């Protein structure tokens, strides 16, 4: 059941209609049932995995909170993390690992027949596993008081708007809201509808139109026509993923729940540090809080801050997919960030020393340079293999001799991209304009109808479902 489908619209309206006539406990029960139904509509067999993850972290957190013995606390933490990583590792990384072991043993001349399994990757597994794990770790650190209500915790793991592709939530934020009664407010509903309309626009009017050109040009075109495909892919993946996050946040708001901001106009970033504060914020802060800082972060001695940074980005690459291309994508970001840190200094307060935002030549150049670095890394992110990625750069240097297959895709894509730019560049102004319901109601209606008329309505699923 995709967010951009009529089935989801019916589902959402039905759940919402019932939700707001129920009391708090019944609302939670309804949301949990709806979340399992939502996930089950994709593949009900994998509901067992969500339940396993939920049970493991729920139990571990209670054990951690109810014992003073450090060894028992540690055991519960390690056991829960091991179960989470084992589930994730088997479904996502088993074949990758087995095939690489095979290549390594072959190099050593050791005969070995790998047992490659036909494993279906459960949708959203990387997202809900990380979310559930953070709860146990936060409980161990004493940052979260675990709930004794299994239903609440199960809903925290499976809350359907963000179950498949985030934002990756934290217990201190989402679970707290699940435990307390929600209230209706016109501002929240206003914001919810805006986010849903914006997310749908990004997905169907921008990303899915761009995809039509990207899918045909990426492995075929040359020269500047290939460069356009790369630019288009950069916006395709941004609009696809941030569109999902917007719809997720918008739907949650209609239930009276706030989800974390996941994207903040990332292509306006003036360096990679800023980019990662704006792109997939819930994942980058997850790695910051549970990997980078425990390793010592920027306060570690000597070269270790660089090691920590590289490790985080290599893991981030692997999180996205079990392939060397993702590892290289992570490595590129890690290396450039390390260079940035080496040049600008680790301990400077970035927000205090950063140049002022605004339209000036320095900022424009910085934004363009950052955008092109990010684009270069996207080549590895999108490529099916290392050879394909390297071949992309070879074709980029060749003259653009292959004709376009038609102009329609450009008309659609560029029209929608121009509107997106107008929104993002002047977002504060638009928001102040639509703050009044008298303006917001007709504005959203027009925006939704435009999306319906202009969008690519059969574009298919979101890119980040595969992660």
């Amino acid at each position: 059941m995709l967010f951009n489908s009529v089935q989801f619209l019916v589902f959402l309206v039905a759940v919402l209609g019932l939700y707001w006539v129920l009391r708090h406990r019944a609302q939670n029960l309804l949301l949990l049932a709806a979340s399992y139904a939502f996930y089950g509509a994709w593949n009900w067999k994998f509901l067992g995995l969500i339940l396993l993850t939920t049970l493991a972290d729920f139990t571990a957190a209670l054990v951690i909170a109810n014992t003073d013995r450090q060894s028992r606390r540690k055991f519960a933490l390690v056991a829960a993390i091991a179960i989470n990583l084992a589930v994730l590792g088997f479904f996502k990384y088993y074949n990758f690992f087995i095939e690489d072991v095979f290549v390594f043993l072959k190099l050593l001349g050791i005969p070995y027949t790998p047992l490659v399994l036909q494993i279906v990757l459960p949708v959203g597994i990387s997202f809900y596993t990380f979310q559930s794990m953070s709860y146990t770790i936060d409980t161990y650190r004493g940052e979260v008081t675990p709930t004794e209500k299994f239903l609440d915790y199960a809903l925290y793991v499976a809350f359907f708007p963000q179950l498949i592709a985030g934002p990756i939530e934290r217990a201190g934020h989402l679970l707290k809201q699940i435990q307390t009664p929600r209230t209706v407010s016109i501002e929240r509903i206003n914001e919810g509808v805006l986010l849903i309309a914006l997310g749908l626009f990004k997905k169907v009017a921008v990303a899915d139109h761009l995809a039509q050109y990207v899918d045909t040009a990426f492995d075929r075109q040359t020269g500047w026509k290939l460069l356009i495909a790369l630019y288009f892919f950069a916006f395709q993946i941004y609009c696809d993923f941030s569109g999902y996050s917007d719809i997720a946040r918008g739907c949650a708001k209609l239930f009276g729940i706030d989800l974390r901001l996941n994207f903040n106009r990332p292509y306006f970033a003036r360096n990679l540090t800023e980019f990662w504060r704006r792109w997939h914020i819930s994942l980058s802060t997850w790695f910051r809080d549970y990997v980078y800082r425990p390793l010592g972060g920027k306060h570690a001695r000597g070269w270790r801050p660089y090691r920590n940074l590289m490790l985080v980005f290599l893991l981030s690459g692997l999180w996205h997919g079990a392939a060397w291309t993702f590892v290289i994508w992570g490595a590129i970001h890690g290396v450039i960030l390390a260079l940035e840190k080496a040049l600008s200094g680790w301990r400077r307060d970035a927000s205090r020393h950063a140049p002022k935002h605004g339209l000036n030549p320095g900022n424009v150049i910085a934004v363009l340079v950052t955008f092109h670095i990010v684009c270069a890394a996207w080549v590895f992110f999108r490529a099916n293999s290392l050879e394909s990625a390297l071949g992309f750069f070879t074709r980029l240097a060749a003259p653009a001799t292959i004709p376009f297959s038609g102009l329609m895709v450009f008309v659609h894509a560029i029209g929608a991209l121009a509107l997106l730019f107008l929104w993002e560049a002047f977002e504060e102004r638009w928001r102040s304009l639509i703050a009044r319901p008298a303006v917001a109601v007709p504005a959203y209606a027009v925006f939704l109808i435009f999306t319906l008329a202009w969008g690519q309505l059969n574009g298919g699923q979101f890119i980040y479902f595969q992660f």
Partner: protein
Amino acid sequence: MAASSSIFSSEQARRLPWRAAALFALLLVLLDQGVGRLVERLILTTDSNWGPNQVARLINRREPGIVLGNSRAGAIAPKVLQARTGLAFYNGTAPGQSIHYQIIAFEALLKRNPNLRVVVYELDHLDLTAGNPATVRAVEVASFLYGSSATAREIFHTLDPWNRLRFLSRTYRVNGAIAPILVDHLFPSQRGRLTSDDGFKAHDGSMAGKPCRPGKAENRPLSPFKIALLKRLVTQAKAAKVKLVFVTAPWLIACGVDRRPLFSRFAELAARWGVPYRSFVTAIGDPADFFDANHVNRRAALRYSEMVAATLAETPKPAR
């Protein structure tokens, strides 16, 4: 049960901004119907070769001869047919389009084109077999005819029952048409470049010397729903006294799947319905005449067109 312990909370429901929600819903419906209706009208004023506008272009034609079919029939040159029959022809084929699309377009043509006398229909063996999923999306370019065509409604509801809900939205039915309408009116010189696929179309290039191997022979069952639509097309053509001729396009069997058993079934159906039918599946067999396994190239397109024209000349003239 006392109200305070009930799982229902009328208090919460009362606080919902129902009035704003109702106004929003009303505005959405009004806008949706208004925009949809406006675009439906505008589509019919366009002449570009993209999606819904391509259907509009077809049903606005007034030639007495029309070629229908998909990409393989795109190689039939109207001028060759005209030279042999003396009737003006228009190639209204659309790549990847199924019988679903063809019958909707044909019915609209019957209503709108009083000159229509001959239709050459390319029977597509890929299309008419059961379980061909590619056709579901392709037919949606004709969805702006949903409101005016009972057949369109029947087809869309059969393809996906959720379409009953989707097509309540009039804007949904004209999805994708606004951009080509804008191009058509603002940049008329670009209208033919919106897509590379348009009417008579045969690519250069050759399969000569290219490695290929035949696939396993296949005899898939025909789709009963699609065959029923095809029969409806025959009935309507007869009722309107429009001469209908079935053809099947050349196919490089040496490089593709051999579906010859299917063609004998097409012949049986055509004979039963009293429609002239010629299969050109094996009429051209030289790899040098194909640009891929199932499309003749520009060089062979004229020969194929000559064969179709000869078939038209052989078959009885239309009654009116």
